[in-house]
């Protein structure tokens, strides 16, 4: 390529010399690749699974205050997005086939610089990662940024451990009957098991499993399953169920400890068939003091129906604080962190992101054209 460019340059030089007309006035732009400032709480990271070709996953970084696209990330087939705790790196955990739609499979953790968004390197991992319409908790990172944990499902279940400091795959931890990666400490993750229990795994400093203990079931999956995308605040996980039960589970110990569940619905709500639904149906703020549920009115098995309202719940008092009606029905919600949290609601069909102020629930704005957006991430 460079040889050809050299030829090109010579030819242009020839033209320049040959033309011989000199002009002065000049006020040139300086073309560069922009850099991003440090990530802000009101930046939404929206994950798009392109319908026609999910072999590439896209992340749109949107400044919701200015309704402005800040940049995009690409990842592989049905990739997971993970942010480093210090916000200096992004990771796309993806699957690649050598000929895109066929060929040899390679799974890799792709490492991207959060300022330049440049590709920095990758760690190839066993080609076993969970391939699913993108869900939270398919991969996670320890709060110290040391270990990446990637859910495998072949359909046997295990977790791949990647040492991000050493940039290498460390090993695989078997988690039979339990799936997903709920990270609650620097050397600890939990998985949800088929019987309604939680498996907690403690790691040693080399990333190997030190202890692995399963709790008692805290709900009955055959009667009222909890959604598989709980929200985690510190060492607590909050689960919502198909019928609107809320469970707080303390993940800090050797064994997960669940508090008794309580219902987000009163009798009138139940009569009106309110229930949680969508994709990312639960969010939290203030360290779990408040949780947010995406609610709709529907019958049984409407757990993927778009939500019309967001209900704000006080987890200490176990009561509802307020209801926020949404301008557009939403499939996923998130609440930003920091002093000034906002509610972000994502509409899959309308391909857009709406924002609402908190606690008043005032509509702030909308950002369109986000492909097939399933998930929102952020600080």
């Amino acid at each position, binding site marked *: 390529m460079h040889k050809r460019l050299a030829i090109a340059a010579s030819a242009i030089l020839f033209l320049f010399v040959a033309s011989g007309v000199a002009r002065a006035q000049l006020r040139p732009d300086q073309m560069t690749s922009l850099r991003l400032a440090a990530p802000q709480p009101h930046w939404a990271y929206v994950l798009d699974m392109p*319908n*026609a*070709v*999910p*072999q590439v996953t896209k992340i749109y970084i949107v400044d919701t205050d200015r309704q402005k696209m800040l940049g995009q990330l690409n990842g592989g*087939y*049905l990739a997971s997005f993970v942010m480093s705790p210090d916000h200096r790196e992004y990771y796309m955990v993806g*699957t690649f*086939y050598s000929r895109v*739609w*066929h*060929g040899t*499979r390679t799974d890799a953790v792709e490492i991207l610089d959060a300022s330049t968004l440049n590709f920095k390197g990758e760690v190839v991992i066993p080609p076993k990662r*969970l*391939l*699913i*319409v993108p*869900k939270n908790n398919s991969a996670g990172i320890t709060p110290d940024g040391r270990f990446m944990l990637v859910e495998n*499902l*072949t*359909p*046997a*279940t295990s977790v791949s451990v990647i040492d991000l400091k050493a940039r290498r795959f460390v090993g695989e931890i078997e988690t*039979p*009957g*339990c*799936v*997903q990666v709920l990270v609650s400490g620097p050397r600890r993750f939990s*998985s*949800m*098991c*088929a*019987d309604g229990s939680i498996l907690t795994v403690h790691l040693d400093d080399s990333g190997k499993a030190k202890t692995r203990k399963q709790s008692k079931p805290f709900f009955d*999956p*055959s009667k009222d*399953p*909890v*959604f*598989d995308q709980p929200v985690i605040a510190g060492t607590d996980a909050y689960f919502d169920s198909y019928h609107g039960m809320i469970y707080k589970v303390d993940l800090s110990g050797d064994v997960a400890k669940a508090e008794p569940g309580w219902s987000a619905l009163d009798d009138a709500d139940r009569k009106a068939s309110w229930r949680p639904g969508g994709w990312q149906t639960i969010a939290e703020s203030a360290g779990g003091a408040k949780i947010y549920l995406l609610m709709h009115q*529907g*019958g*049984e*098995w*409407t*757990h*993927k*129906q*778009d939500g019309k309202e967001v209900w704000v719940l006080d987890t200490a008092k176990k009561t509802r604080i307020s209801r926020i009606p949404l301008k557009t*029905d939403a*499939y996923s919600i998130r609440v930003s962190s920091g002093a000034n949290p906002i509610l972000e609601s994502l*509409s*899959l*069909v*309308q*391909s857009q992101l709406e924002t609402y102020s908190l606690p008043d629930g005032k509509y702030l704005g909308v950002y369109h054209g986000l*492909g*097939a957006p399933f998930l929102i991430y952020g600080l």
Partner: protein
Amino acid sequence: MDKIVEQMTRMVAQRTSRRGFLARLGRLVAGGLIIPLLPVNRVLSQAVAQAAESAPGATPVPEGLEAMVKHGNPNDDTACDYWKYCAIDGYLCSCCGGGSHDCPPGASPSPTSWVGTCRHPGDGKDYIISYRDCCGKTPCGRCLCTNTKGEMPLYRTQLDSDLIWCFGAPTMVYHCSTAEIVGVK
């Protein structure tokens, strides 16, 4: 191997009474024995669905696909309402060059599958249906049918329809979904 799994699936589907099967499955699942039961997962799914109210799950359809969702009479195998599709989730292979129980040319049937029960509107009988994905090409993109009846979260792996169910196929690249009659209940 694929043949054996298929055969087993059929035998289970044909010979197991649903209640006994579910009870047994429950015990196995409680014991952490999830993996072995893949091919029969939708028996459970469908059973749960039938036990519940019949309100159809109104799963949203991603942008650009609205035109591709087709409803019609239960005899049109390119419509979501075709009788065999009562528990299907995905793009209908019938709209993609395949058939209701055939992969389009160049796509491979996944050896793993799930099973459901659908009532034929003509003879009123309940048929056992094995739902098998066709794999090896990018999504067909036509006739998206998303049934959520009986669908469970990922920790009940066998009942999660959001997974790429191409385990055992040449690649994990999802193309479309089929419904194969394996017998009368």
